[in-house]
């Protein structure tokens, strides 16, 4: 068998696998079983997977499932690497594979910390910054696994619940007829064709309130978890009110009352959608996907939480290093005290006040840099995937790998920089501290 013949077989194999994975699975096999792969719908907040999650009473978002997954991966790496390191005495230990990679990262980061902070503070700052680095790195890279942000529950395209009441059409979610049915006829792959036909049957139609209600009526399994959560909360609140007013109601009567409240709620929704006729005329086959996983850093809350941790702990380190004199960085009392001798000290005082704002703006810049880069990366991948499905997105994936790593590195690096600014006192000769002079001597 010649090499070219073998090449032909491999090519046929690749085409068969691609055909199976890109045509049969997403458009025929999965829609039949209630799972869907479709054009992704870009939403800023994470999509709810489990409404009114019993543990905290909040919705369980797909960014949280992904958070748990990344946690597990980080823990596994920690255990594996820790075991490998303890397998031999330190002087004869030769890191290999994963352990080697982690050592490389750790060494690289520690050198940066050492250069910026010196031995003592590098020991204090490095663990936090390195944990943040590893966590962001893994969450950014695991997000690029195919299917991570695309496979999920098929749900009715939802009217944007946060949109203003007067806005009848503009803020609906894009819906795609992925369930194999467009207005009662099988659609399959052709439903993604944008040419001709009924306007409502086209791909990427924005759902109105009426469409959402009709869809929920005809396909109860596809009710969006977020809508369900909002309804459950509203009904529960009303029921509490009723209980308070009439505490003597029996269980059966309560059930009845609950049913009444639910119907009232539904009637209100129908009224908002423009009455019964409007709902009847709605399109029941507009679906979107609520993915099971979504990159942790694409949820604004996560980078914000990290930024709060970093900014707060940097203050703690500053106080540890300089004592209460740390606050002179913001409210420059010494400069104010010497105003008689040095009137220009007033400028120092005002600069100190501006320093407070710059401290707070770190929260914003840390949060939005990470969130924006990763979220925009996801949007970029979507855009390229639908410009040209094969080959073309590959370089973009490499770009995303690079950006994911860089963003993790920048977050860690900024932690070092902020810490180094906090633990070193001002180099003013007027109020020199011991540390300040020591720094001068270096």
């Amino acid at each position, binding site marked *: 068998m010649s090499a070219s013949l073998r090449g032909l077989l491999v090519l046929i194999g690749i085409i068969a696998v691609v055909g199976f994975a890109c045509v049969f699975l997403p458009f025929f096999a999965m829609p039949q079983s209630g799972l869907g792969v479709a054009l992704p719908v*870009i*939403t*800023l907040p994470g999509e709810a997977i489990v409404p009114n999650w019993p543990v905290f009473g909040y919705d369980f978002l797909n960014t949280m499932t992904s958070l748990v997954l990344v946690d597990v991966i980080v823990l596994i790496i920690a255990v594996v690497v820790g075991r490998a390191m303890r397998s031999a005495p330190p002087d004869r230990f030769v890191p290999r594979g994963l352990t080697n990679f982690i050592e490389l990262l750790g060494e690289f980061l520690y050198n940066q910390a050492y250069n910026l902070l010196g031995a003592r503070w590098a020991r204090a700052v490095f663990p936090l910054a390195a944990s943040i680095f590893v966590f962001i790195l893994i969450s950014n890279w695991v997000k690029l696994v195919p299917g991570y942000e695309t496979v999920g529950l098929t749900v009715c395209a939802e009217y944007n619940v*946060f949109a203003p009441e007067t*806005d009848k059409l*503009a803020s609906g979610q894009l819906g795609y007829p992925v369930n194999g049915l467009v207005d009662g006829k099988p659609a399959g792959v052709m439903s993604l064709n944008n040419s001709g036909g009924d306007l409502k049957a086209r791909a990427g139609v924005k759902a109105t309130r009426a469409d959402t209600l009709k869809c929920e009526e005809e396909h109860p399994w596809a009710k969006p978890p977020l809508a369900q959560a909002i309804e459950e909360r509203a009904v529960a609140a009303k029921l509490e009110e009723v209980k308070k007013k009439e505490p003597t109601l029996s269980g059966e009567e309560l059930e009845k009352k609950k049913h009444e409240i639910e119907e009232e709620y539904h009637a209100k929704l129908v009224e908002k959608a423009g009455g019964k006729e409007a709902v009847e005329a709605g399109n029941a086959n507009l679906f979107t996907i609520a993915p099971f996983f979504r990159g942790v850093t694409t949820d604004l809350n996560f980078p914000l939480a990290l930024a709060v941790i970093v900014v707060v702990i940097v203050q703690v380190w500053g106080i540890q290093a300089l004592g209460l004199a740390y606050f002179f960085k913001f409210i420059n009392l010494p400069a104010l005290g010497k105003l008689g001798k040095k009137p220009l000290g007033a400028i120092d005082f005002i600069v100190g006040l501006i320093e407070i704002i710059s401290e707070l703006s770190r929260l914003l*810049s840390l949060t*939005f*840099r990470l*969130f*924006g*880069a990763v*979220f*925009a990366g996801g*949007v970029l991948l979507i855009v390229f995937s639908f410009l040209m499905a094969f080959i073309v997105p590959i370089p973009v994936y490499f770009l995303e790998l690079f950006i994911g790593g*860089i*963003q993790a590195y*920048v977050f860690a*690096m900024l932690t070092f920089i902020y810490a180094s600014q906090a633990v070193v006192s001002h180099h003013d000769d007027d109020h020199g501290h011991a540390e300040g002079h020591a720094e001068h001597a270096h």
Partner: protein
Amino acid sequence: MTDNGLKFLAAGLAMLGAFGPGIGIGMLVNGALQAIGRNPDASGIIQTNMILGIVFTEAIAIYALLVALIALFV
């Protein structure tokens, strides 16, 4: 012009904020390449600092992009 059209227009206008960072990144790389040309031995440190500078500059473009994305999708 419909509300939807205005949204797209707003997103496009917000991306004007990418002008400055574009120029900035160009200047950054220009400086870094000149430095590497003069002292190729120091290319490692220069590259690291260049990428760091690029990331800070790029962040401003990302803010503009975020405004555009929020205008489009929220």
